[in-house]
């Protein structure tokens, strides 16, 4: 079936819905999602959304900008960061006006709390900059946007899996997918396509991400010869519940939680004397793993403790109810009584599809963009997060750039007629599905996927080196060959998840290859990318963005300059 719209948005998280909502003021918009929209992973965002409202104490957008740039290890584009910091307060007001039920302070204003790497006075001490809805901030924003989208007449196509972007000449004119419920091809023919597909945490064994985070948007882009930017920068959140990877928000440390090693020492004092437990995530994750590797984990195991006991039962219930219930459900302990075993968990992709600050997808190392195609949210790289994102900066990224992308999509649609659909549009998805359903190989997706997850966790997590990355790249290419020999045991056309997981695994492999390839090229340590064979940041040679393109069987790297407007790179100390 062919659906015609002005705009089709792929992915229904906060970025996708905000873009859809903005564009829907004047145009017909469809949101296509492989899960029911309300299941998108934005709902898992806990701690807050950053804006220098100054509701609790003095704060300035320049401070927010500085913290974000420093947090990014100076790789973020400062022009974009300035927009983020500048537009953040108004974005929060807009959310409040839409109905987001923010937690309030004693004056009845939106309450704000501390968060990792957010400081006053350019790094002097933590500042209260995170607006929040207890520890359900993502869920609450999603719920509001979902209802507003219905008010604006946005059409949702739930459980539709996108397999390929469609082009008319060099103009993106739609996306081909299929209905997961019955395998029927669904073509969305539109003047503008927005990718808002989120991240790729599932390529690692332990992640805070949901099952849907399989890097689909990255693969859609690479398949269409669009580059990916800064893919080596993968964020590991310091505090996942050990073994499960379920996120314990930084808000837990903002409210007074302390990280302790096996001997009970508050070890972050050694790594970040000023901000301590509220240092940025790359630094805290490395600190935790260093403690563990040097034998200071808890009882020789691969975790440290997050101690929330000092916060007290009442405040835990009030400020961190969701997290407290996770700890009770999955560990059987009360956070007010016992410390929580934690270890870093794959959390967020700083890199992604290169865009300008209006969401246009950039296709070279300059300003050339691909008409009709936009990207926003975690799958995009503006870049405001550079080599390491600060907590609470992702939600504000989604809202600020969701709005900006919506506006530029509307501008684009206003001027364009619907480009012709390529002839094979309807058969694209059917061909992909059928070739998998007819496959008779002897490889199983679940086995290959487990191999990839182990590989990425071992060779391309927080610490990396040349030999490990080379080996990983080699093994990914072997997995690609094995995927070609996959066979499905399940040939059903109704909710065939083996089929979907096979398609997703293809996307995971492409994403993993881009990450490992980019990481192998970058011979320095910056932000979340730490090379034990090149442990120092090297601004002279590497203060630039990585771009990788699909080329023949493999990938090719190119580089582009970063924008530095206000803050010259300095040594990063916290």
């Amino acid at each position, binding site marked *: 079936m062919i659906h015609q719209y002005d705009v089709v948005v792929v992915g229904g998280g906060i970025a996708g819905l905000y873009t859809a909502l903005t564009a829907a003021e004047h145009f017909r918009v469809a949101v296509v999602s492989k*899960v*029911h929209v*309300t*299941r*998108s*992973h934005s*709902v*898992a965002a806990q701690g807050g959304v950053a804006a220098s409202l100054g509701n609790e104490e003095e704060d300035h957008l320049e401070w927010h900008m500085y913290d974000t740039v420093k947090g990014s290890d100076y790789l973020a584009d400062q022009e974009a960061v300035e927009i983020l910091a500048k537009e953040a307060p*108004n974005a*929060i*007001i*807009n959310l*409040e*006006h*839409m*109905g987001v*039920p*923010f*937690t*309030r*302070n*004693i*004056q*009845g*204003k*939106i309450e704000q709390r501390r968060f990792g790497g957010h400081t006053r006075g350019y790094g002097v001490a933590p500042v209260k900059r995170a607006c929040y*809805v*207890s520890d*359900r901030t993502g*869920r*609450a924003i999603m*719920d509001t946007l979902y*209802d*507003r989208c*219905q*008010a604006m007449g946005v059409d949702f196509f*739930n459980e539709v899996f996108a397999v390929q972007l469609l082009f008319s000449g060099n103009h993106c004119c739609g996306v081909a997918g299929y209905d997961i*419920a019955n395998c029927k091809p669904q073509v969305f023919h539109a003047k503008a396509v927005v990718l808002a597909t989120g991240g790729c945490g599932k390529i690692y064994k332990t992640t805070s991400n*949901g*099952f*849907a985070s399989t890097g689909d948007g990255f693969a859609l882009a690479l398949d269409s010869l669009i580059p990916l930017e800064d893919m080596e920068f993968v964020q590991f959140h310091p505090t996942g519940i050990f073994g*499960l990877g*379920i996120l314990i928000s930084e808000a837990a440390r903002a409210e007074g939680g302390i990280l302790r090693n096996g001997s009970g020492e508050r070890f972050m004092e050694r790594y970040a004397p000023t901000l301590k437990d509220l240092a940025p995530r790359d630094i805290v994750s490395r600190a935790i793993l260093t403690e563990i590797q040097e034998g200071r984990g808890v009882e020789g195991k691969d975790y440290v403790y997050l101690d929330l006991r000092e916060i007290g039962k009442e405040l835990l219930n009030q400020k961190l109810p*969701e997290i407290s*219930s*996770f700890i009770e*459900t*999955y560990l*059987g302990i009360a956070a007010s009584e016992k410390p929580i075993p934690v270890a870093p968990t794959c959390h967020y992709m700083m890199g992604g599809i290169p865009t300008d600050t209006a969401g246009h997808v950039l296709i070279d190392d300059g300003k050339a963009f691909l008409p009709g195609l936009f990207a926003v949210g975690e799958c995009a790289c503006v870049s405001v997060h550079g080599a390491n994102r600060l907590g609470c900066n992702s939600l504000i990224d989604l809202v600020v750039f969701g709005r900006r992308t919506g506006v530029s999509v509307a501008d684009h649609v206003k001027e364009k007629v619907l480009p012709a659909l390529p002839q094979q549009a309807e058969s694209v998805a059917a061909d992909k599905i059928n070739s998998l359903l007819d496959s008779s190989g002897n490889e199983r997706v*679940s086995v290959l996927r487990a191999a990839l997850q182990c590989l990425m966790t071992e060779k391309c997590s927080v610490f990396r080196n040349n030999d490990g990355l080379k080996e990983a790249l080699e093994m990914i290419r072997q997995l690609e060959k094995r995927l070609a020999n996959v066979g*499905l*045991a*399940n040939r*059903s*056309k*109704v*909710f*065939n*998840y*083996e089929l979907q997981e096979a398609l997703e695994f293809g996307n995971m492999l492409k994403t993993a290859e881009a990450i490992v390839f980019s990481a192998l090229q970058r011979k320095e340590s910056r932000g979340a990318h730490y090379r034990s064979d090149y442990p120092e940041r090297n601004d002279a040679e590497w203060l630039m963005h990585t771009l990788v393109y699909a080329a023949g069987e493999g990938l090719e790297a190119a580089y582009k300059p970063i924008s530095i407007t206000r803050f010259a790179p300095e040594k990063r100390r916290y």
Partner: protein
Amino acid sequence: MKIYRFNPETDHEPHYDIFFVEANPNDRILDCLNKVRWEQDSSLAYRMSCAHGVCGSDAVNINGLPALACQKLIKDDSAQEMLIEPIKFSLIIKDLIVDMEPFFNRIKAIQPNLPPKTLDSSTGTERLQTVEERSRIDDAVKCILCGCCVSACPVILEQEQRFIGPVAILRAQKYIFDSRATANDTIERMRVMEKPYGIWGCKSYYMCTVVCPKKIKVTEQILKTKKKIIQEFHPKSE
């Protein structure tokens, strides 16, 4: 595990399959379902996403009661055999997958899409709300739209399927009790609640409260909403 199976392409009648899964006491039911799909029978169909009780994808009936497969652990139930069935209120499409359309339509029915009269960005400042005012909607904010309440509601299951159901009333409660809403919006929303098969269909069986995986006091919120409606529209009957 004894799992409900139905494939519309081949089956006329549903049946149950038994799978043996090795599990630790701390494993989630969802982990066990995944072991079945990834290691034993790749055709088993069920939804999942976040796997830690925030997205609401994986509501199933576990030993007869609706719950999230990712939030129930093996040790939570002393039964040796786990009975896993689809939630009940809607058409079963395949195995543990039910048609969610009627569920989301219930939410649509309360008209969350009322024109945003209260939305006025031109002022450029936030609206104030006291901590107490905000706390009136604390419970409803926790809802993850999983559908457990609807699939446990005796009114919907046994008496009147058209009853709008707990999830929709809870969603309406969030809007009706939000101090930021205009009086007109609130009244309009309460009128919606009074439509046929609306809020008065609730007979306070408390099953929604019993099964809610987010521990929302659903029935209490429904009762509060009823009371507000009576005060507003039927003051004499109070």
